C-alpha cells in the first residue's frame, strides 16, 4: 500500500523517536556550534519568521488598519499621514451596488465552479482508477498540461475560444441542433455572439476555464485516495452482491471523506479569490458589474484616483471570509497529520 502513494512515503519519514531520547542527544552536542541546544531551532527559524511576520502577518495587520483610514496618493508618497475615518470606508463600500454585485458574483461563481470541478474531477479520478496502467498514465499526462498552464495563459486561451468571431465555442454551438442550443436573440447563428461583455456569459466562460484548469488536481488527488482503499472492502461488497452505484456510495465516498473535505475547502479558497483568469477574460478591470471581490478590491485601490483605504476595506471582507474557510482546512489537516 505504501509504495503506491507518494504522500505516505514522505510522511512515514516524519515520524520521530520520542522527544526525551532526542533532547539528550542534542544537549550532548550543544557545544559544537557554540549555541545552547534549545536555541538552535529558533536560530534556524529567524529568516523564515522574519519573512512571515514582516511580510505576511504585519501586512495583514496593516490591511486591517488601512481599512479604517483614508489612504490616497499623498499618503502613498508619505507627504501626509493617513487620516482616521472610522467606519467610513466600510459604510461607503456597503452602500455601493458594485460591492453587492461583486459579492454575489464571487459566491455564485465559487459555488458553481467548485461543484463542477469536484464532480468532473471525481469522475475522472474514478475513471483513472479503472483504466489500465498505461492508459491511465496517458490520461494523467494530458491532464497535467491543463493544470500546468499559467493562469494568465489560461485566460488568453479561453478568451480566444470564446471570441465572438473566430471563437470555437460559437462554431461548436452552431453544430448543435437548435432544440439543444438555439442562438440567443433569434439570430440564425451563434457566430458574432459576444460572450465576454456581459456579466453572466462572462462568468460562464470563467467557470468553463476554471473547471478545465482545476479538475486535474481533484482527479489526481481522488486517484491517490482510491489507491489507498483496501481491495478487500470491494471484494466483500461484491460477495454481498452490491451494485456499482451502491459500492461507490457506501464504500468509496465514506473512505474518501477526508480527501473530499480538504479538496472542497481548497477549491473554495482558490475560486473565491480567482483573479488572473478574470482579469484576462474581461480585459482588465473594465466591466464593473462583472467584478468579483478580488477584482473590486484591486480596482478600488489602484484605479485612479487611488483609494487604498476603500480597497483595504473590501480586502478585509474577503480575507475574513477566507479565514473562516481556512480554519476548516487547517483543522482537517491537523487532524490527519501528527504534527
Amino acid at each position, binding site marked *: 500500500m505504501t509504495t503506491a502513494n507518494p504522500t505516505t512515503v514522505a510522511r512515514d519519514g516524519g515520524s520521530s523517536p520520542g522527544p526525551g531520547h532526542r533532547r539528550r542527544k542534542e544537549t550532548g552536542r550543544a557545544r559544537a556550534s557554540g549555541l545552547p541546544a534549545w536555541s538552535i531551532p529558533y536560530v534556524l527559524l529567524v529568516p523564515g519568521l522574519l519573512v*512571515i511576520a514582516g511580510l505576511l502577518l504585519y501586512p495583514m495587520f496593516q490591511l486591517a488598519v488601512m481599512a479604517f483610514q483614508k489612504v490616497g496618493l499623498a499618503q502613498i508618497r508619505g507627504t501626509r499621514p493617513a487620516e482616521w475615518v472610522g467606519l467610513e470606508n466600510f459604510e461607503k463600500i456597503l452602500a455601493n451596488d458594485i460591492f453587492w454585485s461583486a459579492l454575489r458574483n464571487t459566491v455564485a461563481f465559487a459555488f458553481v465552479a467548485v461543484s463542477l470541478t469536484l464532480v468532473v474531477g471525481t469522475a475522472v479520478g474514478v475513471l483513472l482508477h479503472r483504466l489500465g496502467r498505461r492508459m491511465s498514465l496517458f490520461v494523467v499526462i494530458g491532464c497535467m498540461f491543463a493544470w500546468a498552464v499559467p493562469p494568465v495563459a489560461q485566460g488568453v486561451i479561453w478568451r*480566444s475560444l470564446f471570441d465572438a468571431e473566430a471563437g470555437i465555442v460559437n462554431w461548436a454551438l452552431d453544430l448543435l441542433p437548435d432544440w439543444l442550443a438555439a442562438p440567443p436573440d433569434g439570430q440564425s447563428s451563434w457566430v458574432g455572439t459576444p460572450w465576454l461583455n456581459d456579466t453572466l456569459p462572462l462568468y460562464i466562460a470563467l467557470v468553463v476555464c476554471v473547471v478545465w484548469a482545476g479538475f486535474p488536481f481533484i482527479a489526481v488527488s481522488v486517484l491517490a485516495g482510491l489507491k489507498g482503499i483496501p481491495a478487500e472492502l470491494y471484494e466483500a461488497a461484491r460477495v454481498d452482491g452490491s451494485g456499482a452505484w451502491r459500492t461507490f456510495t457506501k464504500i468509496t465516498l465514506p473512505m474518501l471523506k477526508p480527501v473530499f473535505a480538504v479538496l472542497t475547502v481548497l477549491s473554495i479558497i482558490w475560486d473565491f479569490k480567482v483573479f488572473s483568469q478574470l482579469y484576462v477574460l474581461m480585459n482588465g478591470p473594465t466591466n464593473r458589474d462583472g467584478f468579483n471581490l478580488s477584482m473590486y478590491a484591486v480596482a478600488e485601490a489602484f484605479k485612479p484616483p487611488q483609494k487604498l483605504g476603500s480597497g483595504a476595506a473590501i480586502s478585509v471582507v474577503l480575507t475574513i471570509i477566507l479565514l473562516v474557510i481556512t480554519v476548516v482546512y487547517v483543522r482537517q489537516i491537523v487532524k*490527519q497529520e501528527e504534527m
Partner: protein
Amino acid sequence: MTPLARKRLGKILLNTAGVLVFLYAVFPVYWMVATGFKENDQIFTTEFIPFPTHFTFDHFERVLTEGVANNSIWLYMRNSAIVALGTVLIGSAFALLSATAIARFRFKGRGVFLVVLLIVQMLPAEGLLIPLYMMVKRVGLGDNFIGLIITQVALTLPFGVWMLRTFVAAVPKSLEEAAWIDGAGRMQAFWRVLFPLVAPGLVATSIFSFITAWNDLVFALYLMSESEGYTMPVALQYFFGQKGVDWGAIMAGSTLMTIPVVVFFLLVQRRMVSGLVAGAVKG
C-alpha cells in the same frame, strides 16, 4: 451478451472515456500552440481549422523581434526570469532553514508555527497587495525587482517550508549523528550529509517557487509601473492592444511563457499534491 463480450465492451467504453478526457484536457493547450503557427486567414475565420495547413513561424518571429509596448519580448522574459530566480534563491535558502528547524527539532511554538504556515498560504494575495504596495513604495523599492522578489518570497515561503519539511524528515537522523561521531561539527554535518540528501526536495520547492513567481500577474502589474520592468504575464496584456486582437502574436507569446512552466511542473506536481492534501490522501 456473453460475459466476455460485455467485459470487452466495458473496456472499450472506459478507454473511449479516457481518450475523451485526454482531448478535453489537452485541446485548449494544443489550440494555443497551433494558433501560434497558423496564418492570419486561418485564425480569423468562423470555420474550424484543426491543424495549421499553412504552417508559419511569422507570429513567433514577429513576437521575438518586434516585441510589444516599446520593448523586446526578451526583456520581459528576462525580467520574469530575474524575479523567478531571485525568489527561488532567497526563498529556498530560507525555506531550508525553517524546514530543518521543524523537521529536526521539537521546540516550543512548533505547532503554532505549522498552523500559521497553513493559514498564511491561504490568504488572498490581492488583499496583501495593498499593504505590501504601501510598504514597498515607502522603502523606495517601487519599480525595483527587489521589491517584487521580496513579495514573491513572502507568498511562496509558507508552502515551500511545508513541502520541504517532509524531505528533511525523510533523511534519517542517524546519518547526521554518525557524522558527529566522526568529529564533524553541526554545520559540517549539515552541509556534507543533510544538504546533499535533501537536494531533490530543494529542487522541488525551488520549482514551486519559480512557477508561482513566474506566473504572478497582480504584484508585477501594480509594483512595476514602467514598461521596462514588466514581466511576461503583464506584457501579454498589451498584445490585446487597441486596434483589435492579434491572436497569432498573443498565442505565440503565451506559448513562450507556458513552456518553462509545463516542463518544470511535470517534475514536481506529485509533491505539490501531497503537500496540499497532506495526510488526507494517506491510504
